[in-house]
């Protein structure tokens, strides 16, 4: 790791990255209706300014060869041995995330100006969106695990507010609560990891923890790694905490694009990559990361094949793609860069796909049912073109972004050169086939075939304020892979963080992998055409389906498991305890009192008069005694 430099120049001002959107949120929330007319412009402007600042900071960082800059702000909490400074760390890793968050964030703010134009709550929407950007930037820029935790729960709040944006819909309100609670389960893991760090190392700052973590016993390091992973699973919608993410699609579509696809849900990947010095020391925890990634990759892909709701398919796709990223970072030094490259490329194409889906919904009067879409390719030409490019990038069409980044992950897995390498690589290849299947199914049902529109729907292309961000993201989807892998290699940029990339002996030649993955992908496309494209899509989903389809439609029963394992026993326990507390504990204490002093009904009624008199008497007595004594002694 490179030496940390004191932040001078623009980097000393990097706290403005957080302060700008935060100030925007404050103005919009406190300003009330006065800011209705221009609030959205302010919201977008703060994030765009933050993007410019992030670019300038990154340029300066590049100028100092990626040597990280530490920005000390003020003492946050200092007592006893604990000393938490509020401070930022601007290094190549946080720079990448800051660019992604403010860049995609700016585009989505612009898009939202159009998307939310007719919503009476538009100002509130931009306030929450600004709040999210501020919290997310704190998450990636903080220089300690405590700062990360503050941002971590902050994005959880923003996510809650935005999922519940249309709070009069019970579905939205419930989904928001579910997301927050499941995230809190993960947060417990993150919190406990921080407690262990403090107890064992006496510090929570990245520099302190990473510098001394090697002195700990292996079991302790593994425990920290697993607890951090629990936090990561909650935020990133990974098994076993994946069930909230598809429900989060109740939020407005720009939210799905920014928070639940491009940025917040990738925070878990950031956490693991940031904690690389910890994971490097614990193969056990890394193995669990791998298992979680591989398993979630398949769960998401399988569920994605069965849903008819366009946003849910994209949501399960996100779950699955983040599984790829977990798999990559779980590989350790061989996979960090691959995972982060996929994260960035995914940020582009998935955000673009969601914005495209929003444009489709816009045209279809807010319907999300793909069975009522069809034949939209010539009605929505820009949406079709940009969405199509995102689709090709996601399924890994040769030389688009997903092709480079996904193959790099598969390569890294196979390079382990053991049985598990083949298993993980195989899962990843299988996932690529499934991805091609569900995405092709989505394309066919949405843009091709016969028009199955509901009555009175007249599709129309979205206004330029919406299509422009889609075009930019489509360009990113196409080009980012090649840029990150060869033209402007991410591995070189991140070298100060993860060290020099090892020149691995490839077990399988990359060209062969590329070919195999492409073939599997084409098989998936073909299968989708056979099952969906070739036939008429029924307007109602078929009821008589195989158990496999039924399981996939229920997302492999994750909700059912949560409900029967936690929710219902929890409700039962709560009811039982309320009964116990009212009858048992209270009764026992009252009974005791009654046994000592007469019947309990007297306690309630007859003694009232007595108590009142007694209380007054006590007060009077105390006053008289105190006064008299004071008078006597001082007189």
């Amino acid at each position: 790791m490179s030496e940390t430099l004191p932040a001078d120049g623009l980097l000393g001002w990097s706290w403005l990255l957080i302060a700008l959107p935060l100030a925007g949120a404050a103005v919009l929330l406190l300003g009330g209706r006065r800011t209705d007319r221009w609030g959205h412009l302010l919201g977008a402007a703060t994030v765009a300014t933050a993007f410019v600042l992030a670019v300038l900071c990154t340029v300066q960082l590049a100028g100092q060869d990626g040597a990280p800059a530490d920005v000390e702000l003020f003492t946050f909490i200092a007592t006893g041995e604990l000393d938490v400074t509020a401070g930022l760390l601007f290094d190549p890793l946080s720079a990448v995330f800051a660019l992604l968050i403010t860049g995609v964030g700016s585009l989505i703010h612009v898009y939202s100006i159009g998307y939310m134009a007719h919503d009476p709550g538009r100002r509130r929407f931009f306030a929450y969106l600004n709040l999210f950007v501020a919290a997310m930037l704190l998450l990636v820029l903080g220089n300690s695990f405590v700062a990360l935790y503050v941002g971590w729960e902050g994005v959880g709040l923003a996510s809650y507010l935005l999922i519940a944006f249309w709070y009069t819909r019970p579905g939205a309100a419930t989904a928001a609560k579910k997301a927050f609670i499941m995230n809190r389960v993960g947060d417990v893991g993150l919190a406990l990891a921080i407690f262990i760090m403090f107890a064992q190392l006496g510090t929570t700052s990245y520099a302190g923890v990473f510098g001394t973590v090697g002195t700990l016993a292996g079991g302790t390091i593994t425990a920290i790694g697993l607890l951090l992973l629990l936090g990561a699973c909650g935020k990133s919608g990974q098994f076993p905490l994946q069930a909230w993410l598809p429900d989060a699609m109740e939020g407005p579509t720009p939210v799905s694009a920014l928070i639940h696809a491009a940025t917040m849900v990738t925070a878990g990947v950031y956490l693991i990559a940031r904690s690389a010095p910890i994971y490097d020391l614990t193969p056990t925890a890394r193995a669990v990361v791998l298992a979680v990634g591989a398993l979630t990759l398949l769960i998401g892909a399988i569920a994605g094949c069965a849903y008819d709701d366009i946003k849910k398919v994209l949501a399960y796709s996100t779950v699955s793609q983040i599984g790829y990223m977990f798999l990559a970072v779980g590989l350790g030094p061989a996979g960090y860069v691959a995972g982060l490259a996929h994260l960035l490329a995914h940020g582009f194409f998935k955000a673009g796909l969601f914005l495209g889906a929003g444009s489709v919904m816009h045209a279809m009067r807010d319907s999300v049912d793909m069975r009522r879409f069809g034949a939209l390719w010539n009605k929505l030409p820009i949406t079709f073109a940009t969405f199509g490019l995102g689709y090709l990038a996601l399924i890994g069409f040769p030389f688009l972004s997903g092709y480079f980044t996904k193959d790099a992950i598969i390569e890294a897995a196979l390079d382990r050169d053991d049985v598990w390498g083949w298993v993980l690589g195989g899962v990843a290849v299988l996932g690529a086939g499934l991805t091609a299947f569900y995405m092709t199914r989505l394309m066919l049902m949405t843009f091709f075939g016969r028009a199955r529109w509901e009555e009175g729907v007249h599709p129309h292309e979205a206004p330029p304020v919406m299509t422009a961000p889609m075009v930019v993201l489509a360009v990113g989807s196409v080009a980012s892979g090649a840029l990150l892998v060869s033209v402007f290699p991410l591995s070189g940029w991140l070298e100060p963080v993860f060290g020099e990339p090892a020149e691995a002996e490839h077990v399988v030649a990359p060209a062969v992998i590329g070919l195999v993955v492409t073939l599997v992908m084409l098989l998936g496309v073909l299968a989708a055409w056979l099952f969906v494209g070739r036939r008429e899509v029924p307007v109602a989903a078929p009821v008589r389906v195989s158990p496999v389809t039924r399981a996939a439609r229920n997302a492999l029963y994750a909700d059912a498991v949560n409900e029967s394992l936690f929710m219902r026993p929890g409700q039962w326990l709560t009811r039982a305890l309320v009964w116990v507390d009212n009858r048992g504990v209270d009764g026992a204490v009252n009974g005791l009192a009654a046994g000592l002093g007469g019947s309990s009904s007297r306690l309630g009624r007859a003694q009232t008069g007595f108590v009142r008199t007694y209380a007054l008497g006590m007060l009077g007595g105390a006053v008289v005694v105190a006064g008299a004594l004071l008078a006597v002694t001082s007189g």
Partner: protein
Amino acid sequence: MSDFPWLLAMIAVPAIGAAVVAALPRERALLAKQVALGVSLVVLLLAVLTTLAFDAGGPRFQLTTSVPWIPDFGSDFALGVDGIALVMVLLIGVLVPLVVAASWHEADGGPRPVRVFFAWLLLLEAMMVGVFVATDLLLFYVFFEAMLVPMYFLIGSFGGPRRQYAAVKFFVYSLVGGLVMLASVIGVYVVSAGVLGEGTFAFDTLTRLDIDPDVQRLLFLGFFIAFAIKAPLVPLHTWLPDSGAEAPVGGAVLLVGVLDKVGTFGFIRYCLPLFPDASRFYAPFVLVLAVVGILYAALLAMGQSDMKRLVSYTSISHFGFIALGIFAFTTEAGTGAVLYMVNHGLATGLLFLVVGMLIARGGSRRIADYGGVAAKAPLLAGAFLVAGLASLALPGTGSFVSEFLVLIGSFPERPVFTVLATLGIILAALYVLLMYQRTMHGPARGVLLQEDPAEPLPGAGGGGATATATLPAPQRSLRVADLGRREIAVVAPLVALILVLGVYPQPLIDLIEPAVVATLDDMGAASGGTDR
């Protein structure tokens, strides 16, 4: 300026104010309110000036006043503050004016004169200040008992439908605790007489007594039981949901926000330094009660259908965190626990106030009678959310800092208890968000659909503990309106304080820490706390 008896003034001003308000003619209700507000603002000013006069790096007890009181018993009217007492006095100073403003119409149109309500409120303030600033054990005991009286009358005369039951229960529980403590106070006096030849109640002298560990264990219990009733620890908590639910909102704020803190304050001020061996001996037992309380009360909060009872149960859960922090015996956890006392006062105070504002509109305490309020009253919903988020200790609110300090400070010493306590943060999210969703989100429901809220609600008035409060006519409005100017003035300072203390808590920590370190030194624990 340093010679000015700040602490005495903070007791005398509200006490005299109470007498003045009580002496006003019955029909001068508005004047009574104005005087009460003015007096409480003067106390706030005094509290702020006291804080400025206090030197965080100076001796432990400052701004001391001591007048011989009962020389035959060696008891003085001795006042003084350390950082712990000082932040509690500040909390009182902040909360009382807000409570007065929030209770502006509380007693209007009721059977009892308005002036009586505000006179009790001011007298309560005087007693509360006294209990925190007393540095003589007997004087502390007197304030501890006297504090009950105004609260008893606030609940019993101005509370909800079951106010009599709640007030008596509150009084009897407290009195039992007080009597047990009196026995121990006398015991301490006797021991001091035995050791020093002459009995004393002076706190400073008592902490230097070397009491026999077996005697300590006995005397500890007397104090502990009294404080465990006050701060309620499970299983001595069942009076609080009744009192919290039946008390008028302002009374509930002071009850849970300040009065109950006397219990946790007592733990750290009296139990630990007077009985260090006994504290260590009983610590595992106390920690079990604390952790059970955190989880048990949180589950119970989830099961409540009455909003005020729900908030009361959340407080019992929070008191578990405070007790955990105190009995972990580390600087970090102890400082966190005291900070928790302040932050909890602000957060739960706000929560009770906002719930009260909602109840004043809908005329029902039942969660089921509300729904979709956010659409009608966005400011109220926003304040509700901030209070709720502070209650679940979200970063950015002061509560996060204190809960984090308690947990991270307890973990090195008591990892198992801390892990269990940390699970409470999931339950906290559940009880807060469930209540928020049911009342604020969703389509309009319950009272919002009533054309004329004077009509009884369908399903309302269900018997037992969840009886609907019937409020006096003037408080009912035809529709749920958003916060008015007076209500905004009540809510805004609390919201601001919660957020400021969430971002920059260090000034308070700097006040509190020396006193916590001194306490741990008194009990001979390593002041660094953690050993590694």
